[in-house]
């Protein structure tokens, strides 16, 4: 086989998610009253990147065969924090952004430390820390409010060169600065190895703990970037419990749509980004077809089921039935 075929096989999940997204987006824009215009794309992008950041965060943890149920709450907490700190002079704003990102890193690091060194199951540990993070967010913003540096907010949610959504540019930059180095670093490979077969990784002398810790910590950072963007879009901070929960759950859906295996060891954050964008577009489709918004959850659920089923065909080839349970 040629090299490109292996590349194709490796990227199949990502390409499938890209395909699903493009098909949906084309249907969406071609039925939109305004059509494929800079405005439509910008609105879609701004809605999509929020889930994209949270889904990237989820990907990192899922790769280690863990799950992070606190990403949505880190997203909320950093939103509340940003509505206090990302204000004032350019200098103050910069320091505020750094503080918000540091808070996200810290949340992720706490998750990682509890899961890896405390040996708690990720699902329980992150439910607990998620509640704590939400609680802190609620103390920071008992009522919706606050403000944000509007110059920065408008610049990052506006357009570059008149037609490219700035939020997409930031998303791309984050992929290049965080995801690409991580996935190609020793720690990233350790995260994949730990997710695929922790025993084999241990026997091969792979730095499993550091790899997993890096994954959890960077997940906190990515969720915080999402939280910052939420603040830029809304100009306020709000500890909205339902919203945090749905971001957590949608991030898992986006990750699966994006071809990331919940068993760990396989998938890419880029796939998860397309998964997130596709998932958001499902909701928008209902809007252009004038469906009652009441149909949205049902419709999203059906699409998700169909997409996820595509990945289950391999089970028909198993020759030892015990492998079904591995």
């Amino acid at each position, binding site marked *: 086989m040629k090299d490109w075929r292996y590349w194709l096989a490796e990227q199949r999940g990502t390409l499938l998610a890209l395909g699903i997204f493009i098909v949906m987006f084309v249907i969406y824009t071609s039925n939109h009253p305004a059509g494929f215009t800079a405005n439509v794309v910008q609105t879609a992008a701004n809605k999509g990147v929020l889930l994209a950041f949270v889904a990237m965060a989820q990907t990192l943890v899922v790769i280690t065969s863990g799950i992070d149920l606190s990403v949505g709450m880190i997203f909320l907490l950093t939103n509340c924090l940003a509505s206090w700190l990302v204000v004032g002079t350019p200098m103050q704003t910069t320091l505020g952004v750094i503080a918000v990102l540091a808070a996200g890193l810290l949340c992720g690091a706490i998750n990682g430390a509890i899961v890896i060194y405390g040996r708690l199951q990720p699902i329980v540990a992150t439910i607990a820390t998620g509640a704590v993070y939400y609680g802190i967010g609620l103390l920071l913003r008992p009522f919706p409010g606050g403000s944000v540096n509007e110059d920065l907010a408008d610049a990052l949610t506006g357009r570059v060169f008149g037609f490219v959504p700035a939020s997409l540019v930031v998303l791309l930059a984050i992929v290049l600065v965080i995801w690409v180095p991580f996935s190609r670093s*020793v720690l990233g490979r350790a995260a994949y190895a730990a997710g695929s077969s922790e025993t084999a990784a241990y026997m091969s002398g792979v730095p499993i703990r550091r790899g997993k810790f890096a994954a959890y910590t960077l997940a906190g950072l990515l969720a915080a970037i999402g939280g910052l963007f939420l603040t830029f879009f809304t100009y306020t901070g709000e500890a909205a419990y339902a919203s945090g929960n749905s971001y957590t759950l949608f991030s898992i859906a986006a990750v699966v749509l994006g071809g990331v295996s919940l068993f760990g060891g396989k998938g890419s954050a880029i796939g998860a980004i397309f998964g997130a964008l596709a998932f958001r577009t499902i909701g928008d489709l209902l809007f252009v077809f004038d469906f009652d918004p009441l149909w949205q959850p049902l419709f999203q659920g059906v699409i998700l089921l169909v997409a996820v089923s595509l990945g289950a065909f391999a089970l028909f080839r198993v020759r030892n039935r015990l492998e079904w349970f591995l």
Partner: protein
Amino acid sequence: MDGAAPLFRMEGISKRYGGVRALEKAELTVEAGSIHAILGENGAGKSTLIKVMAGVVAPDEGHMMLDGREVAFASPGAANKAGIVCIFQELSLIPELSVADNIVISDPPKRFGMIDRKAQRRIAEDALARAGAGDIHPLALVKDLPLSRRQMVEIAKALARKPRILILDEATSALTAADVSKIFGVLKRLRSEGLALLYISHRMNEIAELADQCTVFRNGRNVASYKAGSKSDNEVVELMIGREYSHIFPPKPPAAPAGAAPRLEARRLSWADRLHDISLTVRAGEVVGLGGLDGQGQRELLLAFFGVLRGLSGEVLIDGKPVTITSPAAAREDGIGMALIPEDRKTEGLMLPMTVRENLSFAALDRLSKGGIIDRAAEQRLIDDMVGLLAIKTGGLDIPVGALSGGNQQKVVIAKWLMRQPRIILLNDPTRGIDVGTKQEIYQLMRKLADAGAAILFYSTDYDELIGCCDRVLVLYDGAVKRELVGAEITERALISSALNIHGEESPVGLGASL
């Protein structure tokens, strides 16, 4: 030995697992530029020895010296750094990563802090070529490769780490004959480059071809070291024999009951590349043993009978009638009445956090319930019977089964199936890791069940058990039955030599060259 310190030496190494002594004051000297074969039967301590060398387990006592300096390894990574690399029997490859990723996994080449994929590719191609596996594409995912190719990747991965001592633990067991000869070429070249190779294999012909030095292990001790070729196969078997007889076995019935159609029969049963043309019969009232070295297809054979494997060829007959069993649930149905006591009670036999009561009644729930409701009184009666019959020692029926001792857990697994009064009982190494007292009870029970009319197929890695419990023993090698031993023929010597597939003068079955 000429004054200079040997490359590696271990002295007085002991290791216990619970009450079981795996190694007892073992010694080993490894010289550079030679291939050293380690021999011994199942449980002689070979695996523990290499696990100690490779940093997987820490010894309870003893020293290890590398270049005359004392060393201790906290992890496999530490042993690798010191130049000791082991190719384990259970593969250490990461399935979702590519071949190249796996080959460089312990120390990937870096550039600007990131993994240099071009350099990685070069290293991988180079290592694959050195292992004689240039046909494997470095970008292929390991999980997509067949077992024999994975083993070649494993060898390439070891070579890429530039070892000084390379340990191969049954590294050729899954390879094709063509690969084996390539690997032998590679190993001989490595020897000439000054590496020390430790070679663990049960294939005597391989050892004869490769080894310079041999050490035989028995009961966790090295009992003899000799120059390869200076002892005959029979002398080697003699050295491996001699385990202490510590078990008491129930008397066997005078002669195996004959006559009626066999309760369980297999005709030319094959599966994937693990089982080849296996034919056997088990009659009611008979205990038939499965022997041979670990991993020769015994486990797969039992799983095949129990309906776990798909794509079987050949026939299975119950009471002379052909049947197709497609799941464990079907295997236990009335017309078949099969039970399997699995190898690993913790994952395949018990739900550890659930209570003793729940675990006991799982297999028989359909018989104890009407319309989906469990008849608690009937359940209690049956459980009381079983707890009494097997003398299960438990603090109560409502404590988690995980709180019981290993022996009592195993009794629960057995009792669970006896509640269905099975007609055919398959046992997969049921006494592994349990105390001697419980072992004896299990032997008595097996004979009692056979006397009551059950057909028993019993795989054990402990030769004493096969000798003490079985009316007949089938010895498996490479997924095929190599020899059948009946009655007084079942001796340790016969079991070991047929397990090693040696065609000694006393071997009655002329099977020609293996492989």
